[in-house]
């Protein structure tokens, strides 16, 4: 009996976890309804056009609109305190073509999300570009290359022969941490600081250690655990050289937003129904009441944030997104096409000042990433929120301006927001989470995105 108000699964919020889940359920021929209260896809994984935040008032002044991002079905807004500050009013370009990501993230080239995109062919909905970790600002106040591969160690003239051997030994160890004997020895270290683990077990020169912890692991402070650090390093090296000399992939026009849209599109193609900008009044165990009073039923209701991660710190992260005039070639690896695409830079603790024990993680996107017009770049800086985080970000910004190698580099405006650290989890964790939830709904994870394929020699 077809009941148009009854579904197998209702999902609230088109964030990445739920978009993947929506698609997985639709692929299994479940009747899926996906609702989002926001007028755009992605929730906190989404992006917004700069035009939606800055408006031109009657007097010709730029005005800042309130940007509201809701977690569907919940009362409090997801992102609060978005502060926009305009530095150079007259130099702002036409705001068309500038996409600001709420939480900029990248995909690991060897990670489970990229694997899933490949297997499901959802990558065809995306335009993928490489992103590389470029340099880190070390405690000796020098910009240093992040050690990404054996070739980097080989070519580094500042390392002694013995140091090269010790570093490579560490890299070899990381690639074999899943071996039984290593797992045994690791058990006692997993929750302890990675810093201590390195000191006890490996002799690495200071600069290499900093490059690994703040470059490869993107740590926000020195307290990163051994488990977390080793996972990230292992994934980093696994990913490097998968598709080319880089570990990360981004999607043009806002990675998170495009990923969510890609999976939602796949879900719709397989029969999922979508409702955007749809107000939700009440959510109960097996029903959802929409704004107009209509009630919809489902065996499973998936809230916007179904799995709350508990092992991550409560401290917020201050993120500053700057719109910068200038091509900033000094911030990117030079590539064949001389297109600035996407780069990462890192500041280690205390490198910018003796009073600042937190690191700053920076991502720089150029016109090649599709987020801004030619001649401009978007800089995203992240640091743990504390009393001096604004000072720290300002100092980091100045250092980046110095490094950018173009005389006309000038920040024109910035948007500050506070982010929950739990939302910083990388995209592969979203895939695992979606898979877990899928298992709860269908009883098993075996059929997650499995469809019978017939081998045909003429297939591409």
């Amino acid at each position, binding site marked *: 009996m077809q009941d148009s108000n009854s579904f197998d699964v209702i999902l609230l919020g088109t964030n990445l976890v739920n978009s993947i889940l929506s698609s997985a359920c639709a692929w299994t021929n479940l009747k899926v309804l996906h609702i989002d209260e926001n007028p755009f896809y992605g929730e906190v994984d989404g992006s917004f056009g700069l035009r939606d935040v800055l408006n031109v008032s009657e007097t010709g002044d730029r005005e800042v609109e309130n940007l509201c991002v809701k977690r569907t079905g919940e009362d409090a807004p997801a992102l609060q305190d978005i502060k926009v500050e305009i530095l150079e009013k007259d130099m702002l370009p036409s705001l068309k073509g500038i996409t600001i990501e709420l939480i900029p993230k990248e995909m690991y080239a060897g990670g489970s999300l990229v694997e899933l995109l490949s297997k499901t062919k959802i990558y065809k909905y995306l335009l993928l570009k490489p992103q590389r970790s470029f340099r880190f600002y070390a405690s000796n106040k020098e910009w240093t290359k992040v050690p990404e591969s*054996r*070739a980097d*160690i*080989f*070519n580094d003239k500042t390392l002694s*022969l*013995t140091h*090269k*051997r010790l570093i*490579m030994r560490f890299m070899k160890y990381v690639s074999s941490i899943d071996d039984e004997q290593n797992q045994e020895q690791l058990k006692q270290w997993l929750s302890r600081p990675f810093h201590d683990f390195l000191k006890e077990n490996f002799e690495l020169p200071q600069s290499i250690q900093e490059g690994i912890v703040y470059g490869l692991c993107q740590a926000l402070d020195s307290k990163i655990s051994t488990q977390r650090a080793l996972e990230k390093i292992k994934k980093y090296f696994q990913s490097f050289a998968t598709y080319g000399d880089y570990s990360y992939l981004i999607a043009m026009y806002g990675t998170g937003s495009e990923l969510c849209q890609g999976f939602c599109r796949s879900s719709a193609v397989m029969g999922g129904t979508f409702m955007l900008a749809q107000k939700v009044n009440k959510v109960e165990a097996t029903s959802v009441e929409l704004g107009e009073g209509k009630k919809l039923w489902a065996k499973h209701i998936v809230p916007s944030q179904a799995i709350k991660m508990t092992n991550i710190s409560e401290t917020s992260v201050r993120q500053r997104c700057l719109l910068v005039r200038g091509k900033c070639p000094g911030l990117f690896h030079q590539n064949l096409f001389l297109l600035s695409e996407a780069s990462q830079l890192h500041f280690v603790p205390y490198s910018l000042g003796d009073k600042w024990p937190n690191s700053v993680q920076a991502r720089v996107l150029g016109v090649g990433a599709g987020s801004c017009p030619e001649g401009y770049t978007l800089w995203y800086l992240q640091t743990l929120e504390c009393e001096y985080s604004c000072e720290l970000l300002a100092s980091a910004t100045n250092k980046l301006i110095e490094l950018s190698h173009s005389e006309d580099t000038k920040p024109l405006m910035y948007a500050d927001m506070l982010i929950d650290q739990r939302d910083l989890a990388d995209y592969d964790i979203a895939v695992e989470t979606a898979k877990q939830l899928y298992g709860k709904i269908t009883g098993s994870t075996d059929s997650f995105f499995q469809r019978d*394929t*017939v*081998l045909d*020699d003429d297939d591409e």
Partner: protein
Amino acid sequence: MHGILRVKLNEEQKRLKLEKEKTKIQEYKGLIEQFQRARQLKDYSSEKLKLTTELLDWNPETYSVWNYRREIYLSSVFPNISVNEKQDVLDKELQYVLSKMKMFPKVYWIFNHRRWCLENAPYPNWNYEMMITEKLLSADARNFHGWHYRRYVVTQIEKQGNYDLAGKELQYTSSAIATNFSNFSAWHNRTKLLEFIIKKETDPELRRQLAQKILQEELDTIHQAAFTDPDDSSIWIYHRWLMGHCNQVGAPPILSVLSTEERIQYIAQEIQLLEELHELEPENKWCCELLIEYGLLIRILSNQKTTKQEQTTWVSLIHTLQQVDPQRQGRYQYLLKKIETITNA
């Protein structure tokens, strides 16, 4: 083929696949028979070119078909056309070969045919060929066909212009090695280029200085590689060449300018470094083996007796080798005998 997933087929799918393949096999056999008959009858008419194209599109590794194709060109196409027409025909042929090369970059016969085309062409474009080697090697820096072809093209360019590209080519190998030093072809190419560069210097004293400078620089690079990844075989093979410890007729030019004492000095320097590495990596088989080989080499060159202590060290190294590399027991037994022979001589 690499990188293509094997998909499991069920019984029905397997049967369908076999059916499809049977018809294809019949077709192919038919074409081969046509070709064999035509060649037997010495039919070199230009219409038969189409037959060879069809066969080579199926399978570019049938070298007899390439041979037949060349025979057709030589017998019935080239004799009847002007020089410019010949260039046009060969240009088209080169395009065809290039399309095959893109799909099969490691087939000897494709490279042979390309060389034949260029050698028969009135106006071969060597710069274009150079660009092709660049593309080949950027797609796969370890494709020895690509490197071999590059040496061929470089030689042709040098002949034409009467100059040498050795310096530039050396830089090219340096950048290949900087990207990934597990590249046998790059190191091999380097040996050829360094020999040439040293031989080019005619003044004996300058040649000596040049050889020493080169030797030390190469050794420094190898040291960096050896400590980065001591398990990589290509660097040790190159090291043996630098030390003159490889199967070569006559001493390599890099060492022939040195006196025996100087040569012994270099070997001693390397042994010291190997001992350092051996301390860090006691199970590395290359270290163990080369410590013995170079030690023996010094004794032979200096015509001095081995000491008791050396002998003991070497024998214990042999035991380590037999443990960490049990598949080569025989080789290390042989090395043990060699130690005994030289010690007792």
